[in-house]
């Protein structure tokens, strides 16, 4: 494993991200609120660059108590990244597809240093997703 300092946390927007390429591996590092998460830039669907797409709130459907639909609304609690190849969405906090819990991005360890830098722990080559 290797630790990689990708810069100060203060450089990130909220929500925001950096996608880094290092030693043949690509990792998307995301900030949402106070939390940092990181994933391999590899969509479990077909291997697309999942971390390089749009960041957008999940779409929900508002259902009234009488079970009638009141239309589509943006979630106030869930923000997704969208794989630009085919539109697969993944919750930035969990890496999980909103409609298929088995479809999930592979997480990468990330933490903040005492200096406020974002540190990514890159696994060895054999633990990385195949192309």
């Amino acid at each position: 494993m290797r630790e990689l300092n990708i810069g100060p946390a203060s450089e990130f927007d909220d929500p925001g991200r950096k996608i880094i390429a290092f030693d043949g591996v690509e990792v998307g590092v995301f900030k949402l609120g106070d939390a940092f998460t990181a994933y391999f830039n590899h969509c479990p669907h077909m291997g697309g660059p999942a971390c390089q797409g749009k960041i957008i709130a999940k779409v929900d459907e508002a259902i009234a108590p009488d079970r009638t639909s009141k239309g589509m609304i943006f979630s106030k609690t869930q923000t997704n990244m969208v794989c630009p190849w085919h539109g697969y969405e993944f919750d930035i906090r969990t890496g999980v597809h909103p409609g298929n819990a088995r479809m999930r991005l592979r997480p990468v360890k990330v933490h903040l240093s005492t200096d406020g830098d974002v540190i990514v722990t890159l696994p060895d080559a054999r633990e990385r997703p195949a192309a």
Partner: protein
Amino acid sequence: MLERTPQQFRELQEITIKSDTRDILAHATKQAESFEDYFLVDIDAHVTETQFWNEILACIDNDVIRQMAHGQQLRPGQGATALLNTVPGMSYQHVYGRIPHQAALAEVVEEPGAHHFTTLARRSMDALGLDYQIVFPTPMLTLGMHPQDEIEAAISGGYNRWLIERILPEDDRLKGMLYLPFNSPDACVELVEKYAAEPAIIGFTVTSTRNKPVHHNNYMRLYSLIEESGKPLAFHSGFNWSDPSFLQLNRFISMHAISFVHYSLIHMTNWIINGLPERFPKLKLLWVESGLAWIPYLMQRLDHEYQMRTCEAPMLKRLPSEYMRDMFYTSQPLEKSNLKILQCTMEAFNADTQLLYASDWPHWDFDPPSSITMLPFLADQAKRNILGLNAARLFGLEVKRTRPRAADVLASRPGVS
């Protein structure tokens, strides 16, 4: 063992409509490193012809219709859709901006001496690892629903001329299928007579989104000519939200999931039940862009009913499924959420010899070649057949490597790891 590293990393950027095709598809290029020795043919890729609409309109022979088009273009916002029956405000394929390459390929193109589209096509071929790519139009896929037959005929004439004279001569890796204005059988015959011998035209296309019975006697002369040419006839499916049944569907996903298959089911059924395989035994048929799951459904359903109602299909000498097994199919969009079902589906129509890989690039539900190479139940030879050798057999393409090495494509892109 944890190692702290001081090395520099590179930052990758968000993919937008301005991203270079080779960067969008960089991961597909990495995948292509694992099948460098395969011969690859993409049967179904698309040009967004409205991006070059002025060039195509200029190729329309009829000067009245050409003037109509130019007159239409005076209206703000109609420069790229003049005469077309598309509904631009409902082109939802890109999932409201979530899939940028479907919204637009607005990348920088500065290659001197090449048409803008040729450059885009070369980038996609190089990035996906393709030796040949067959070009189909996009908004024109719904032209069969145009209420004015003469407009379909005029536009298709302009498009065919543009493709044959302007695009295909630029790169031997690009091939075309002649668009047939199927609502005007005589115009189809004229086009086939004019262009059938063009080397870069390797077949003929009927866009399936239309309400024309393929067994009508008006088409027999056309099918005879195509059969004589030795080149295949393709039915390329599409969607049509205006169909009365589909007007009940309130979301694009619902309509899109059903509409492509709907038209393939209708045209295939008419083709089989009216005995066209017996009337044109040497005519090679290819079914494009409906996925595969509809094939075993229709095989079973038609076999079941045919054996009870044989008197309604007196031309047939075999089961409907046997005729369907003689035909060819393209792979995209490959349904693969259940691999057992996909395996059975492929066995049902002898995919090893009858299936042809298609990417559908740059559309939103495109399949890279890895959609085939990653299938665990296919033997290596079957993968090679599907990805290129079946196409070489059907279209008479020379099996030769024309693409650069994947590693070289990646090395030419500084923004790719």
